[in-house]
């Protein structure tokens, strides 16, 4: 076991596994967000469920650990990888041999991290730690997250940041998804193609899904 943590592959596996875990979180996240399109009541009930359900509440710290592991190990690996080529090549042309996203996972991850901070402070922090309006749905009082979100998405530059974040995330997942399966060894010639197709599909769904919701609110705001 100690060999696992000492070796580069062990570290990679942690990045991959935590990445897949975060990926599953993002799918849940998107599903909840899609309630926004269904209307105020649905979304607020969904949000209420997510913030009060004991199972979700216990998963939340695990999620935080997932983020920390993913980020910490990525930073560490990248730092080590930076030292492997002290003298750089004068001319590098990797356009034919690899995808742009695969070469820029750290940059993408870093930008997503910046976005994450903005996003957390603007949504999760507000929702949990500031006073926002309450509303009654089905006889129960709950926070009116819907209105909070709608007001954020009414700001054009916030939507721009949000859509950018979603697209960056899409690129990150596009490589990250099949890469994670490769790293944990669940891949071969055939499955690599399958993971790539599935990854492409899901990353587009995720990037488009988050973006469409934000744009929907912005357009709704502009029209009204």
């Amino acid at each position, binding site marked *: *076991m100690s*060999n*696992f943590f*000492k*070796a*580069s*592959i*062990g*570290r*990679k*596996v942690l990045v991959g596994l935590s990445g897949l875990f975060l990926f599953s979180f993002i799918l849940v996240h998107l599903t909840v967000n899609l309630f926004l399109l269904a209307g105020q009541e649905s979304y607020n009930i969904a949000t209420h469920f997510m913030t009060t359900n004991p199972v979700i509440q216990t998963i939340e710290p695990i999620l935080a650990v997932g983020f920390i592991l993913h980020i910490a190990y990525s930073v560490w*690996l990248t730092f*080590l*990888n930076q*030292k*492997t*080529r*002290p*003298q*750089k*090549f*004068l*001319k*590098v*042309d*990797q356009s*034919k*041999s*690899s*995808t742009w996203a*695969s*070469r820029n*996972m750290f940059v993408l991850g870093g930008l997503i991290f910046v976005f994450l901070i903005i996003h957390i402070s603007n949504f999760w922090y507000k929702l949990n730690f500031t006073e926002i309006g309450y509303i009654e749905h089905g006889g129960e009082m709950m926070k009116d997250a819907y209105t909070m979100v709608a007001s954020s998405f009414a700001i054009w530059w916030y939507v721009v940041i949000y859509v950018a974040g979603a697209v960056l995330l899409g690129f990150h997942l596009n*490589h990250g998804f*099949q*890469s994670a399966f*490769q*790293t*944990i*060894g*669940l*891949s*071969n*010639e055939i499955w*690599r193609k399958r993971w790539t197709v599935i990854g492409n599909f899901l990353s587009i769904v995720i990037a488009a899904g988050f973006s469409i919701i934000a744009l929907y609110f912005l357009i709704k705001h502009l029209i009204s």
Partner: protein
Amino acid sequence: MNLTLKIWRQKNANSKGAFVTYNLEGASQEMSFLEMLDYLNSTLIGKGEEPIAFEHDCREGICGSCSLYINGRAHGQDSKSATCELRMSRYKDGDTIVIEPWRSKAFPVIKDLIVDRSAFEKILEAGGFISANTGAAPEANSIPVPREHADKSFDAASCIGCGACVSACKNASAQLFIASKVSQLALLPQGRVEAKLRARNMIAKADELGFGSCTNTGACEIECPKGISLAHIARLNREFLKATL
């Protein structure tokens, strides 16, 4: 045809190198890339300058001696081929070609375009073999190997140890090189006995020698002269997990 060649010159391992630009006249499209360098060297010797040191031997893509990072790509612009297989017909009159040695911490430059690749040997020493003494072998057909496994094992074993994977990799990772050996032997019943130790020790050695880790960009597979598949890295990862967990 006439070419502008920007070539890395470095007197020895301890000296600082620099690019030198050569204008080569009279090269022909019928030459191979290495013959073009031979020709350049003959003109340099004629002018009383020192010829460029570069490695080559079989010149048919199997010995793995040749290297060279040409215009930003390991073994030049053709995928899945070695520098010695590159033809000048891929270039045209007036082209500028940048020629660099492999660059990574684990492959220090010895002179001009020659690097020291003995780090590969050290990785293999950590377990890239089956411990079968001469004379101890059983009758060959007593170990049947499913044809599919034998074929895959061959594909992995076709590695020529040139180091293109390390150069093509943005992290200078030797993962494809290690995977080719681990996978070749893991696929054969003969090699299963030591499979665990092999994966674990070879990875540990590569880490120690200053190779990077794999981020699955896949560049190595494209630039590998033998086109060794990334699937072998997945198998290496499996073997590693089996060995350590």
